[in-house]
């Protein structure tokens, strides 16, 4: 009799122990291992939005006729020394979706109600992907990173999450897909959908299937972005401060250049100097 009570007590204690441990712990075993530093996989040189195709017209972006012209005008401006449509020259962040090109490495921090995607490029962005089941708020101030709501999915029914599905809206402009100035619509009504998961064959490769819905496109445009996990035990996170040593100077609607010796200079042939009407005449 005593032995039976003892056995039952041991059993009850074990059950209580398991429950107590689980209640205070965040069980990250439920989630895929997104830890570490992720670096983009793309050909050498300036990355394109679709890493699998050449830059510029080679991207075969399904632009409307109107926005093909916008792109052409942008290319002409770039050729003349202008900035085109890429916001990075004036230290504005690329925003969504181009920030997922990962111009600098990415860190993903998974918490129960939010997943952070951190990228230090121009702006030390920390995207929040809300996974708490919230609805879209009624009023949202647009942001370059947009506002993201996501959910974890278990594709293969093994009780563990495999992929993070995200929708991002309320994105601020101006934005271009990459530094060639491939344009998104000026109305900033872009919707970006993503599906982020580990490659089944190589758990050190992260895939991001990015679909862009935008009024500058004739149809949704899907590209696959890939990132490799840094092999170093202690990866280094570089600080990318755009304003440091940025030689582009914006004055009103004009963009000038700062010379190596610290003087203002034209960025385009024939560019007029800034209006100095507010300065006292110099002798």
């Amino acid at each position: 009799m005593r032995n039976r009570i003892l056995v039952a007590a041991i059993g009850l204690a074990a059950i209580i122990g398991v429950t107590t441990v689980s209640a205070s712990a965040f069980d990250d075993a439920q989630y895929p291992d997104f830890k570490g530093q992720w670096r983009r996989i793309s050909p050498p040189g300036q990355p394109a939005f679709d890493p699998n195709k050449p830059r510029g017209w080679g991207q075969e972006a399904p632009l409307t006729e109107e926005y093909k012209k916008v792109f052409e005008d942008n290319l002409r401006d770039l050729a003349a020394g202008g900035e085109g449509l890429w916001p990075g020259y004036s230290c504005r962040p690329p925003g969504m979706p181009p920030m997922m090109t990962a111009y600098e490495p990415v860190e993903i921090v998974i918490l129960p109600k939010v997943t952070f995607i951190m990228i230090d490029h121009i702006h030390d962005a920390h995207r929040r992907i809300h996974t708490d089941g919230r609805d879209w708020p009624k009023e949202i101030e647009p942001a370059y990173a947009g506002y993201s709501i996501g959910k974890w999915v278990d594709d293969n029914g093994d009780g563990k999450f495999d992929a993070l599905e995200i929708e991002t809206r309320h994105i601020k402009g101006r934005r271009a897909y990459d530094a060639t100035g491939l344009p998104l619509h000026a109305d900033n009504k872009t919707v970006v959908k993503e599906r982020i998961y580990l490659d089944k064959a190589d758990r050190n490769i992260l895939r991001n299937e990015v679909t862009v819905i935008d009024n500058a496109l004739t149809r949704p445009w899907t590209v696959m972005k890939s990132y490799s996990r840094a092999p170093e035990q202690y990866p280094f996170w570089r600080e990318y401060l755009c304003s440091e040593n940025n030689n582009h100077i914006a004055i009103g609607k004009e963009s000038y250049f700062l010379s190596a010796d610290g003087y203002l200079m034209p960025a385009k042939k024939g560019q007029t100097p800034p209006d100095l009407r507010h300065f006292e005449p110099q002798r």
Partner: protein
Amino acid sequence: MVSRRTAALIALAATLCMMLGLASAAHAFDEAKYPDLSGQWRRIGPDRWDGASNRDAPLTPEYRAIYEKTRKTEAGNMIADPMLTCQSPGMPRIMQAYQPMEIIVTPDTTHILIEHIHDSRRIHTDGRPWPGEVDPSFRGLSIGQWQDTDGDGRFDTLVAETRHFQGPRYFDGSGLPLHEDNKTVVRERISLDKSNPDILIDEITVTDSALTRPWTVTKSYRRDRTPVLVHRESVCADNTAHVAIGDEMYVVGPDGNLTPTRPGQPPPDLRYFPR
């Protein structure tokens, strides 16, 4: 009545359950071990490093002279504050928390997120050693460790050291300078106030060649638990009208034209524009 065999099976099953529970706990991040640092933390006090006037800042005579020559506004803030042209405040000035701070604790890193210019930090708690060569930065490289100072089995203090800086950096908006050699070392002890868990304390000790001795100040932040539905993004380039050309700071006025920031300021030299 339960047979001995059945009872033994129950005990075995319970033991297995416990082992599985412990195994999953080994993967689990036990946030109960760490202090609750959730919410938004806002600085208590003015934008002055010592929380008052900096009058007793232990500057060397050379750097006191530099400080006293700094051009300032009527409110005592430096006119040519590099933050105005979107330069990072760097450490230790980041801990002035010009915007609310959010702290995310994970086993390997404590992230301090501040939506300001470029103020977010990582404090690595993964046991890494100091690397031989480090790309210097305004925020520096921070390595720390969690401590259980009262022996109750829970961490209560994050001790961090930050090195490998670039500059120029200042302690605060008054222009209190750090040395141009950028050999600053910043040591911090971050913990919740024992008498009020909604106050965060950061005891910061700065060792710098502009100082005659290590200087310790205690900064406090108040927790705001109000849930934030939409976190505001702050992009400095959108919010500043200041332009630095050479050693001079100008402002782009509402009419889109360059304006001086002080009486008698010369305009930029336009030598590279055709006459």
